[in-house]
């Protein structure tokens, strides 16, 4: 008898433990989460520092996801390009991402926005590093550009006292720039009101 009761208690406990997990509470399909879901495309890199474009994309993706946004992996989004669009995007990413294509991606994948950008300058001279970036956000309802910003940071941008906070590495500078500045600005644009 006692054994049967314990079984029931166990099952109840088990289901409850599943229901209250944090991960599940994040997946909400409420009409209010209108601007929560999106993706970050690889930045256009006009510099010699190859690889930086992927890193910026990934840091931005991870940081946005940490801030409660729902992000689709960009490669999955690109798998919905037609073969012709893939070639066009590879050849000229600025033109290839047409409003029509953005609208289609939005409707298929439920994305509300797409973030992209361009690395204008990235250089390292000795211990001194400098980076210039353009970041933009396009909404998927009409495929329009809704925000863009220019960022210019160098080794001393995040310096505090003496040489503490000084950056002599481009990747660390990108990491700091995304975490300290870009995310702050993006949060003002991508207003995500979700019921949890």
């Amino acid at each position, binding site marked *: 008898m*006692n*054994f049967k009761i*314990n079984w029931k208690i*166990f099952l109840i*406990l*088990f289901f409850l*433990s*599943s229901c209250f*997990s*944090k*991960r*599940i509470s*994040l997946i909400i399909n409420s009409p209010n989460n209108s601007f929560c879901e999106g993706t970050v495309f690889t930045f256009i890199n006009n510099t010699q520092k*190859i*690889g*930086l474009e*992927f*890193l910026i994309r*990934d*840091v931005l*993706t*991870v*940081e946005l*996801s*940490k801030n409660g946004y*729902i*992000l*689709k*992996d960009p*490669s*999955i989004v*690109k*798998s*919905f390009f*037609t*073969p*012709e669009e893939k070639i066009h995007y590879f050849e000229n990413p600025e033109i290839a991402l047409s409003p029509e294509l953005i609208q*289609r991606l939005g409707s*298929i994948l439920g994305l509300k926005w797409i973030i992209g950008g361009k690395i204008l300058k990235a250089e390292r001279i000795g211990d001194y590093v400098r980076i210039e970036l353009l970041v933009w956000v396009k909404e998927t309802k009409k495929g329009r550009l809704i925000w863009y910003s220019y960022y210019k940071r160098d080794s001393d941008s995040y310096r505090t006292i003496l*040489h*503490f*906070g*000084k*950056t*002599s*590495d*481009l*990747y*660390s500078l*990108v*990491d*700091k720039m*995304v*975490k300290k500045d870009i995310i702050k600005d993006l949060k003002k644009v991508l207003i995500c009101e979700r019921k949890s």
Partner: protein
Amino acid sequence: MIKKWLKILFFSIFFILIFKIVYAQIVIFPFEDLSSSDYGINFEIPEKIAKKLSKEGFQVVPPKEVIPLLIKLRKPNFFQLDFTLLREVYKKFNAQYILLGSIGNLQKEPPAISMVVKLVDVSTGKIVWGKSVSFSSENFISFLGLKKTDYESMMNKVHKTLLSNFKDPLATIKKIAPTVDIQEVVFNSRYLQPGKTVECIVRMVFSGPKPSFIGVEVEDNIGKRLIPLNKYTNKRSYITFWKAPKKEGRYPVVLVVTWGNKWKITKRIFIGRYYVDNTPPNLNLVIRGAKKKNGKVLVKDVLEIIPKVVGNSNSNFIGRGNGISKWQIEIYSKDKNTLILKEAYPGELPKFLTWYAKGGMNILPPGDYLIKFKVWDLAGNQNEVEKEILLITDPPTPQVVVYDGKEKNLMEIEINKNFIPLVRVYLEIFNKNGKKIAEIKKEGAPFEGIKKEIILDKNDIKSLNTLYYNAIIEDELKNKKILRRLPVIVKKAEEGPMRATFKTWIDEF
């Protein structure tokens, strides 16, 4: 009492076991290493992460075990995820998450690392967790630099930071719907004339049960309808045909895949569009630097043809439907009534075509010519434009004749226009010793020609045969002729005018 304790122990073990089972399986992919000049793959860091996670009690599949699946799926670029890959990972490992990572910077001396890791949900493709770390020697500055940091200790810190807030991903999905991913789409032509057959080949990869229907949704003369795709040369390729509609415009093609039975899912994927075009390309032929006079196109020594296709205003796909697939040029000599050039080339129109008519290998004599230019657009529509030109490569040569008389000599100079008026004539006549004995100078407004008679004194010129002249003659097209030391033609007085005209007398005066 023992029984009770045994029961408690049994339930505890059972509960822990169940809880472990519902822990999601995480497949760790090799990390993308962007730190080397040519992109590489890093196994060392993800293997260590796998070990650490495993120690913590998570169920992980280390990167080396994933490689055979990636080879089987022919996915060398496994960083590029698609739903088929996600589903295959789920199917093979019963995994619900994939841990992906990219390394931006990795150096041992001085130690520095930049890395991003993210956890992707295989059922949705969404990123459920992620972390980026970036450490360099500046992050480990100690008091007065007493403590030095080496690579190993930095890596330990990296692992600790990475996994500090790693969420316990629970197994939530029971099944993943079957998927399809497009690998290639080939149309026989994207641009067609109405009624022509559209041929479409789709190469795709499936994951999951066999679909009950594979086809495309198209619009043709009958209307919007579904056309099934049939197997083509290999098991991944499918082919279908349909007639292009009568109405000009652009038409989308959507792949439709249905899984019946227990799934009841239909996936619609846009695979491209084709254009129905029945309008010939609007061709415009410009002859660069040419002058139009009395309805004729006048060309000097260089014939430069600029063919251009201008978009049709009635078309809503300007510049796309009017792409050129082939062009042809023909040049006829109207004077000789012969074809002197015929060339045809595939592809886009040239920016310009140049023919040096006066020099080089293909000299063209002055005269009337007819240029025929033909273009075919990508749909096969054709258009031809003709242009008549008059080629004038040289200004006329002057006629300088001296008539040998008994008392006086009469010199007659005549320059007549060669199709077009002249704008400059400068002519000097010299004797044997280089003394200038006569001169003609005229420039400014265009004039038809010059005719002048000069009476020369017999005493001044001993021998008429030694006279010569220099001249510069320029026509309205800027064709220029420079003549040096050309002999003056000597004729008997009886052959020419017998006496000087009134005009000559005035000139001399």
